């Protein structure tokens, strides 16, 4: 079967922000059991940008949901900041997510009956910030992401790109330890995708750790490290190498006939 590919970047115990050990998820459904994740070991260091790629059905989204506590794992360990978090109750997970984990989804998932301002302030309010503090943080984020004029808008009236930027602002509101992004450009056209990816890059430059799930190489290549998932297991885990000098132009790829 799949050979044991030694991952290039081996996690050193104690320095990793996020670490999973033999993470497994099995779904039991009408059509039989599905082994979505089979024993995944991965790690994300502080400030590191890690992308997870793989064909559909490889379990990428499930992996993200497990790490974010949206689903309980069948077995295995998850460590965040040297605290073991896989066995937490729903309530404890919720508290953890508030402060330490930010989520960005493919379909934006903004709260439909709240304005943009409310959506972005919500995480701050939930963690106990005062109204003034939440408002200040919201203004700062919206300005940085180019949404300053849309405070009172309803999410339904914004374009896809704007909604995803609001989602990003919301995810970053509490300065989370790690940002989890599940196909953030999956529902956007190419120019909006480029915007969002550029923002992700900027956020990463400011020191935010990001775990990104995507099937688009143009998103994955921005990461420090790319993990390739196949059939629920890690097939490859390597840093993205700097591009070779010789093909700095497009020459290596495109040939003009003539």
């Amino acid at each position, binding site marked *: 079967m799949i050979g044991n590919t030694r991952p290039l970047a081996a996690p050193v115990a104690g320095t990793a922000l996020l670490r999973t050990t033999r993470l497994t998820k099995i779904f039991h459904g009408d059509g039989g059991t599905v082994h979505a994740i089979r024993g995944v070991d991965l790690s994300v260091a502080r400030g590191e940008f890690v992308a997870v790629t793989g064909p559909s059905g490889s379990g990428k989204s499930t992996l993200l949901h497990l790490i974010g506590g949206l689903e309980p794992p069948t077995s295995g360990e998850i460590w965040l900041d040297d605290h073991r978090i896989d066995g937490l109750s729903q309530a404890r997970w919720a508290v953890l997510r508030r402060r330490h984990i930010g989520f960005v989804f493919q379909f934006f998932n903004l709260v439909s009956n709240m304005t943009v301002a409310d959506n972005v302030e919500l995480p701050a309010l939930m963690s106990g910030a005062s109204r003034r503090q939440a408002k200040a943080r919201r203004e700062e984020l919206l300005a940085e992401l180019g949404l300053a004029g849309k405070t009172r808008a309803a999410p339904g009236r914004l374009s896809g790109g704007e909604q995803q930027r609001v989602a990003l602002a919301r995810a970053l509101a509490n300065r989370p330890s790690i940002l989890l992004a599940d196909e953030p450009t999956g529902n956007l056209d190419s120019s909006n995708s480029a915007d969002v990816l550029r923002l992700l890059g900027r956020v990463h430059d400011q020191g935010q750790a990001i775990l990104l799930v995507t099937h688009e190489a143009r998103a994955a290549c921005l990461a420090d490290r790319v993990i390739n998932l196949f059939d629920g297991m890690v097939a490859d885990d390597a840093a993205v190498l700097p591009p070779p000098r010789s093909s700095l132009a497009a020459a290596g790829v*495109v*040939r003009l006939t003539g």
Partner: protein
Amino acid sequence: MRLPLLALLAKEPAHGYELKSLLEQTFGQAYPSPNIGQIYVTLQRLEQAGLVRSQNVVQATRPNKRVYELTPAGRDALAAWVEEASDEPRVRDDFFVKLVLSPLTGATDRMALINRQRRHYLSLMRGLSRLAAENDRGNKVSRLLIEGAMLHLQADLDWLERCQEEFV
């Protein structure tokens, strides 16, 4: 390079250095700065094929320059090129051959092969990303070229996944 030069000459006759600067202006950074020697060699070949002809123009204060222009045969060739659909092979021939023959060659296993190729593509993609970021917005041609390259790379990566599914 032959056809781009023909196309540029279709507009008006020009000499070698003019053509070089035109190429640079048109394709910008996405295309490597063409070697003037390469241009002259191509022009000579085109002349031998009867698609262009040249004239020596005498200049008062400067050295003589050779000006090239399109012949009718050259115009026909250009028209034919424009009409015909482009057919570029995208299959990475060496890689595919390597992959198929790997059990025989006794080299590293297929998974490692695929992984290596994928890492290469990813780093290429990163290069294209950087290029796109540096490229000035106004240059539509350059942008399209980079976009095209990225899309092709994505297709190659998707095809890699298919290989993974079939062979591993």
